[in-house]
């Protein structure tokens, strides 16, 4: 029997845990959130991704109860949460600065929320012990926050926000303060913990790699609007706009005029150059301005002219050597620069191309995505 894939957003019978209904937030003249509709499902690991100032943190703070929408409604399990103050919401938040109470020990920090619920002493003991075990902090229970390292503080913050077993956990740039190596390890730890506890996670981040790694779905935001909400692979392979394509990973963008026949589009992009072909499910009117987005790793580079569609000649302008990969910047006679990426399966001494070599770049019809904006 095939395992059921986790995709509640495709299931029409599923009711969302959180629903944003036409939510806007204005600070004076500034619109931080602009008429957002969004549904997040139970057990999801949902990422809000965007540059700083795009409204992702405001959106999260509205879920926590620290901001109220200027208009629109937010539902949590079908209940409008606007009148519920932050201390009565079944939502907990892990703060970017961790916000650990400096005068309390690790143990007391984790127990803080449980004590507010007025639970029995042995119940609190058991729950804190469980959290310490989950985050591997047993040895540090009696220490104060300033007596442990940054990575440990991050885990205390996580344990504290998970202790009350919230319906929804909000994570505000949770890994921002960690160095790269620790960040990558912690990403997998977060995913494990999310799976073990079955809690719904909403993470805010500006790091696209982090969002792609951890999330079941990613919402790309810009200037208070949702640009695209989809699974990481859809976001990468089928971006909704040039903005999304450009924000996630590296991309070649070629502007042109569309000539559509069925599911194929021919794009006129430069005087005297053959049109570029791509497959699409969208509809373009004749001569409509469109953009071809091609990922560098889908562009082949060769010394001999290959057969097939979308073949262009050029000259190697630059080579970025990244160890496992090399990115070749190929300058076309039209002035466009196309990035082509190749895995370095051979030792560097035997690299096939060097600066100013004449080369051919090519890609298949299905490699490029045609975008209308």
């Amino acid at each position, binding site marked *: 029997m095939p395992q059921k894939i986790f995709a509640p957003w495709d299931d029409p019978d599923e009711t969302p845990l959180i629903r944003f209904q036409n939510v806007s937030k204005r600070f004076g003249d500034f619109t931080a959130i602009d008429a957002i509709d969004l549904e997040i499902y139970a057990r999801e690991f949902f990422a809000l991704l965007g540059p700083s100032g795009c409204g992702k943190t405001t959106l999260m703070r509205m879920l926590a*109860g620290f901001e109220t929408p200027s208009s629109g409604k937010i539902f949590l399990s079908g209940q409008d949460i606007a009148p519920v*103050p932050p*201390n009565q919401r079944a939502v*907990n938040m892990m703060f970017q600065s961790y*916000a650990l*109470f400096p005068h309390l020990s690790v143990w007391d920090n984790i127990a803080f*929320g449980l004590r*507010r619920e007025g639970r029995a002493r042995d119940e609190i003991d058991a729950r804190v012990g469980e959290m310490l075990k989950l985050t591997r902090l047993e040895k540090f229970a009696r220490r104060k926050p300033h*007596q442990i390292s940054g990575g440990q503080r991050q885990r205390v913050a996580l344990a504290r926000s998970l202790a009350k077993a919230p319906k929804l956990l909000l994570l505000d740039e949770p890994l921002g303060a960690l160095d790269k190596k620790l960040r990558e390890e912690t990403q997998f730890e977060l995913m494990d913990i999310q799976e073990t506890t079955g809690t719904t996670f909403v993470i805010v981040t500006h790091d696209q790699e982090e969002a792609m790694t951890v999330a079941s779905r990613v919402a790309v935001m810009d200037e208070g609007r949702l640009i695209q909400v989809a699974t990481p692979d859809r976001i990468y392979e089928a971006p909704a706009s040039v903005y999304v394509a450009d924000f996630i990973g590296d991309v070649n963008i070629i502007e042109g005029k569309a000539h559509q026949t069925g599911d194929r589009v021919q794009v006129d992009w430069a005087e005297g150059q053959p049109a570029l072909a791509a497959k699409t499910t969208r509809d373009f009117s004749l001569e409509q301005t469109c953009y071809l987005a091609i990922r560098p790793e889908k562009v082949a580079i060769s010394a001999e002219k290959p057969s097939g569609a979308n073949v262009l000649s050029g000259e190697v302008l630059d080579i970025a050597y990244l160890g496992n990969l090399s990115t070749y910047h190929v300058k076309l006679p039209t002035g466009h620069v196309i990035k082509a990426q190749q895995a370095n399966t051979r030792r560097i001494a035997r690299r096939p191309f060097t600066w100013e070599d004449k080369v051919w770049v090519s890609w298949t019809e299905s490699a490029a995505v045609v975008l209308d904006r």
Partner: protein
Amino acid sequence: MNRLSPFNVVSLTLGFAFLYLPMVILVIYSFNESKLVTVWAGFSTKWYGELVRNEAFLDAALVTLQVALLTSTLATILGTCAAYVLIRMHRFPGRTLFSGMIYAPLVMPDVILGLSLLLLFIGLNVDRGVLTIVLAHTTFAMCYVSVVVSSRLVAFDRSLEEAALDLGATPFQTFRLVTLPIIAPAVISGWLLAFTLSLDDLVIASFTAGPSSTTLPMKIFSAVRLGVSPEINALSTIMIAIVTVGVITASLVSKRAAVRRLREEKAAERA
């Protein structure tokens, strides 16, 4: 630039002499055998003995202490509340007026403050005594407390309070369990500041005191008008000693704490 040039040595000496020479002379003459303050007649501690037997001075000291304790406690509570509201509440009607008014007594001349309070107490027909001095001292001391506490609140990471709320604490629990313990050093220094201000105030106390409630500064001032006695030198020396010990202890304790914290942070990062 760390070298002590002759110029630096001279200016340092002059500066410190200007500040401390009068006090040093006062301390030395408190151990003078002679009744004349300007003539040295050998070492003696007899004026300290005289002081302990002088009931008027002891009564005044008791009143002063009582006033200072009540004032500093009351001013700390009110000043902390005022600072919290001013820093935490961003917009409410009359905020600018309120924040301006809370600092006004800082720049108001003591004479005006004392006189206006005296007129108020007379108008309200309040009997003057310890209570009126406490009220008057609280009026200006709470402004100092609120300045000290608000400087700490400004530097306070707001997300700590949000985290407490997020974990289910009510706003009052948040203040009691998170905000107050963290701003405690500022609240304590505010209390000490109010205590000292009340302890050495002469002008406002003179306006608002009644016949049965003479404070120590008032007593000293009136005694000096009849001539400086070595007894007053002895009393002043005791006060200097108390203040010096207090200040040195406080700075040693806070410095030790800072050093220990730094060491623990370094150890945590290495581990």
